[in-house]
């Protein structure tokens, strides 16, 4: 790193490019180490959380169940208006772009195939995940980071309450269940709005034909993988946001940085999970 002394020195700058590359290499190295440590910490946190979920299953139901319902409601119901708005937009975008093309080649019967492939299998779950991440995941990091900074984790420990059980398990389970519900609403909304937009564009397609096309293209594997994918996205977002809010001591001014990291890592992990499911679809 150049210093004030180096700038004022009469000596010429080194000719070799090595010194110019070093800060870049250092930054890359630091980034890599930080990434590895983060993955390691996240993995350990996920295992601990799953362990607590299993071993404390049924413990203090009267406290944990309402919290889980609250989180499910937050991710699955309170986001419903925005999810419906997005579903209308999604139906419009997909139909708007494909109808003209399909009309040109006389392949309206493929409209259902396109909707199942694009909306049900790919965009629906991913869009719902991004919605939950932006509205619930970020709020979770802020809430838990604040609780951590204010010493509430220590307060729970002294009361004999496992902070993972109280703070993480309801959010983890609630986000997975809520995201599944939200994805179902979003997909249904997009499929319905898709037909609406097709109707408005005078596509000669009866509702019965459209829904028959959808039903023909859907298989049991779609339902199973949709459930698995949304639960996976919800778990990833829940764990990553809880990890960044809770797993390390934070001061209040560090909460915003933790939130940014949680968003970045959640997106990367969700996309990786999405890629894994694409492979499963291709193999199946």
């Amino acid at each position, binding site marked *: 790193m150049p210093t004030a002394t180096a700038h004022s020195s009469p000596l010429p700058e080194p000719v070799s490019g090595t010194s110019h590359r070093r800060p870049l290499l250092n930054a890359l190295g630091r980034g890599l180490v930080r990434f590895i440590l983060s993955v390691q910490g996240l993995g350990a946190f996920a295992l601990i959380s799953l362990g607590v979920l299993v071993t404390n299953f049924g413990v203090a139901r009267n406290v944990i169940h309402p919290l889980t319902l609250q989180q499910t409601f937050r991710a699955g119901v309170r986001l419903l208006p925005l999810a419906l708005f997005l579903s209308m937009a999604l139906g419009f975008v997909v139909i708007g772009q494909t109808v003209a093309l399909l009309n040109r080649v006389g392949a309206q019967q493929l409209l259902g195939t396109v909707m199942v492939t694009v909306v049900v299998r790919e965009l629906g779950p991913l869009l719902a995940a991004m919605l939950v991440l932006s509205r619930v995941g970020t709020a979770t990091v802020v809430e838990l980071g604040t609780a951590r900074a204010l010493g509430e984790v*220590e307060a729970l420990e*002294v009361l*004999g309450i496992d902070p993972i059980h109280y703070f993480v398990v309801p959010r983890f389970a609630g986000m997975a269940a809520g995201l599944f519900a939200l994805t179902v609403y979003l997909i249904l909304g997009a499929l319905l709005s898709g037909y609406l937009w097709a109707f408005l564009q005078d596509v000669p397609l009866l509702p019965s034909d459209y829904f028959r096309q959808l039903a023909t293209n859907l298989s049991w594997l779609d339902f199973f993988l949709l459930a698995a994918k949304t639960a996976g996205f919800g778990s990833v977002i829940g764990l990553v946001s809880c990890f960044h809010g809770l797993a390390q001591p934070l001061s209040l001014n560090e909460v915003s940085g933790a939130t940014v990291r949680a968003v970045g890592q959640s997106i990367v992990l969700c996309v990786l999970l999405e890629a894994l499911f694409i492979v499963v679809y291709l193999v199946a």
Partner: protein
Amino acid sequence: MLDLTPPAPPGTPVVEMRDVVVTSLRHPDEVMLQNVNWTVAAGEFWTVAGLLRSGKSDLLALAAGIMSPASGSYHLFGNELTAGFEHERMALQLRLGLVFDGGQLLHHLTLEHNIALPLRYHLGDAKANVEPRVRELLEFTELSRWAHRLPNQVNRNWQQRIGLARALALKPELLLLDTPLTGLDPKDAAWWTDTVSALAAGHPVVDGHRLTLVVTADSLEPWRQRATHFAVVRERQFIALGPPERWPARNEPWLEELLPTSKRNH
């Protein structure tokens, strides 16, 4: 469900630290106290005094089992405390209560729900178990009227009172209080000293059992006539002082900081 253990008989060691090194709760690499050798027996009332950042809150956090000693051994109720959150450890933890400086209440719960939380978590949701106890503790803190408020809607002193009620909810044997008199006016300070003394003597809110007490303080004076044992933390050392009549007679500067000479010689 709560596993009730019979209380330790008077005189039995409750807290035993041997050559313990205490680190900072917030900065675990920073050593606050070294070679702490301290035994608190059941029924004793200790005051541990020290200046700001002397490590008294960290000592209390370690005594409460929130963190482990960097080295040395710590036995709570005769059992060595290990790191992590385990069921055996939880059973020990339920026998003590800690009142944090400022209360450290859960900010999303109302005052009454903060008190009810340990009861609901450990005893179940039976209203017959929880509601009367919460009412009793609210009356004890004289804050029944504000039961439905959130912590940030009441002042720091009241938050700390609710912290006391929450710590007493499960009727602990050992009560640790972290600087309860900080920033209080004389009336509120008197409430705290009277209440803590009553708890030491056996208050109805804990079924008349004499609690074992450890109070940390910035000054020894308010507790001089109340506590039975005294200690000071300074320069990373834990120094047991014994009863007031055995305190150093000469004007030690460090004792002067914690107790004005005029008052010490009375």
